[in-house]
């Protein structure tokens, strides 16, 4: 079995007496997107900081692309891309200048800055100063910067936080495409919709611990309810009932109602990731 791109075993980290990460373990295979889903202060960003070598874990093991990480490692950093939550771009430089500068840091001889700027739809503003960019444009430039050197591992900290739906979708499409090309992606978010749409697997993190780690589908199936909400016309009345999908008798009853043309609407009562998160941790994602 090949080594996962990201391997994390029992890492812990404390800020003074405050334990931020409490012995979490997970791995991310090449081409896989792992969503770290949790509220603010859950330990997501601290985990990413340890993975990119900016914090050194108090205990545990991290291996990125098979190399143990304890602090900065130029060789491994050359192969990873990071998109931070804060928009840490050079505002006095243009979008293109920002990318060209980072291309030099990555030692790229022929950086495809034009191509990546087209990909994130910033080509027509490439020569404008970043200070004139909107929030969505800055975020797209952050993504472009993280992808510029074709990293094998990609860390994305809240990549679509606060963006409009169009910008969010554009960024999600780029992430999905890169994963399909073989990049391992670790994505932190408190947006359950984004985690559900993007992630191959989702980890629920809260108070520095991973509560669950599985595919969104498995999580929904194992923690959600298989029910349907049905509205039926009975004379002048409209009745709304919850029907368990595993109950054969209830299903027959529903079939009869449908054949008589009395069913107005049917909605499945599938649990959302947020529902499951709340039921497991007792906290909301916001």
């Amino acid at each position: 079995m090949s080594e996962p791109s990201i391997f994390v075993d029992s890492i812990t980290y404390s800020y003074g007496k405050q334990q931020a990460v409490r012995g979490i373990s997970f791995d991310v295979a090449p081409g896989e997107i792992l969503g770290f889903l949790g509220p603010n202060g859950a330990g997501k960003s601290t985990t990413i900081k340890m993975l990119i070598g900016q914090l050194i874990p108090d205990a545990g093991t991290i291996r990125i692309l098979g190399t143990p990480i304890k602090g900065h490692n130029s060789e491994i950093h050359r192969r990873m891309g990071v998109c931070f939550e804060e928009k840490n771009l050079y505002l006095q430089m243009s979008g293109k200048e920002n990318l060209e500068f980072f291309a030099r840091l990555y030692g790229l001889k022929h950086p495809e800055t034009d191509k990546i700027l087209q990909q994130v739809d910033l080509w027509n503003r490439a020569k404008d100063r970043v200070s004139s960019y909107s929030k969505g444009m800055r975020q797209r430039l952050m993504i472009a910067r993280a992808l510029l050197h074709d990293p094998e591992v990609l860390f994305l900290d809240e990549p679509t936080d606060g963006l409009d739906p169009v910008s969010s979708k554009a960024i999600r499409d780029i992430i999905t495409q890169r994963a399909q090309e073989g990049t391992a992606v670790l994505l932190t978010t408190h947006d359950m919709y984004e985690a559900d749409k993007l992630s191959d697997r989702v980890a629920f993190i809260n108070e520095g611990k991973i509560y669950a780690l599985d595919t969104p589908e498995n999580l929904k199936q194992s923690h959600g309810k298989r029910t349907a909400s049905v509205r039926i016309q009975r004379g002048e009345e409209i009745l709304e009932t919850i029907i368990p999908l595993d109950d054969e008798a209830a299903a027959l009853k529903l079939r009869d109602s449908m054949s008589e043309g009395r069913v107005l609407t049917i909605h499945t009562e599938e649990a959302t990731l947020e529902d499951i998160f709340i039921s497991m941790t007792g906290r909301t994602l916001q």
Partner: protein
Amino acid sequence: MSIKRFAAVLKKDIALGPRSPIVLFAVFIPIFLTIVLQLVFGDLFSLKPSLAVVDQGSSEVARLLQKTEGIDVIFLESSEELKRRVLDHDFDGGLVLSQDFDQQLKSGQRPLLEIYISGESYAVNRLVLMVTSIDLLRQVEGRSPPIDIDMVQLGRGEDFPISMRLVPILAMYAFIIAGLFVPASSLVEERERRTITAMLASPVKLHEILWAKALLGVLLSMVMTVVTLVLNNSFSESQGVLLLVLLVSSVFWAVLGLIIGLVSSNSQILFALIKGTGIFLFGPAVFYLFPNWPQWIAKLFPTYWAIDPLWQVLAHQSSIQDVLGSLLITLAITLALIPIVKILGRRMLRQLASS
């Protein structure tokens, strides 16, 4: 250390320079102060008194004036042109020597000497022109002055004019603003905007970033001190020694700038630190302004060793051997600061990651 990454950071910082108010401030302030001070003390635009001469009869006085080193003499064709150009303040003064001026002078007559003085000329220039002219007239007349002059110097022999004593202060400004403040503020700005975090997520290492910023400070500091010295007519002699002294001092100020930048987590702290430590930074230069103060006190300031070699070369035309001791002390202090830079760098990384 990767030279390519180091060069990439330096190139980026140089490119951002003209877009940074701090760098523009660093370039502008020493030039501005030089011009203001030189205008006040009248050195920059009036190096020597200038005298226009209309010689209508090949006067000996005119020949002697031309040989006088302390005056710029220009010969004109007519007294009308002379009057017009003195009125326009092209010259400090003008002299019209009539055709038989020397003959009348030597024969004991009292020839008329027309002297025109520009209303905008400095008093000191007027004095120099008058005294020099009268002295030359005596020479041509063939008489010695009716008095013996005994010149007694008051004050210490090594005292220099105020304009000269201001040069270390102007150089200190260039050192502190360009050498110290530019790397410090660049570092603080990267920290405040978190761009340093983005850089550190790439292959570049912290020490490559820090030394690139230090080199920016060294380069800017050297350029600005040279410009300041040129504007003060102090960059004419011993240029090799001067450049070496400026290089050693600039490295010292840049390393000090890194320390101040690493200690300051934001701009407010940086400005407070610069203001708070200003007296310690500038202290030694003030002693050059007041030569009667006990000069040994200046040596207690570490920054003294970074400015005194420059003063020695400028004021006393000291050789490299003369200032070697001070330069070695400056280098030793600089080397002693490097471990502090490393410790503070690690501290900054922890702070960045924790915030």
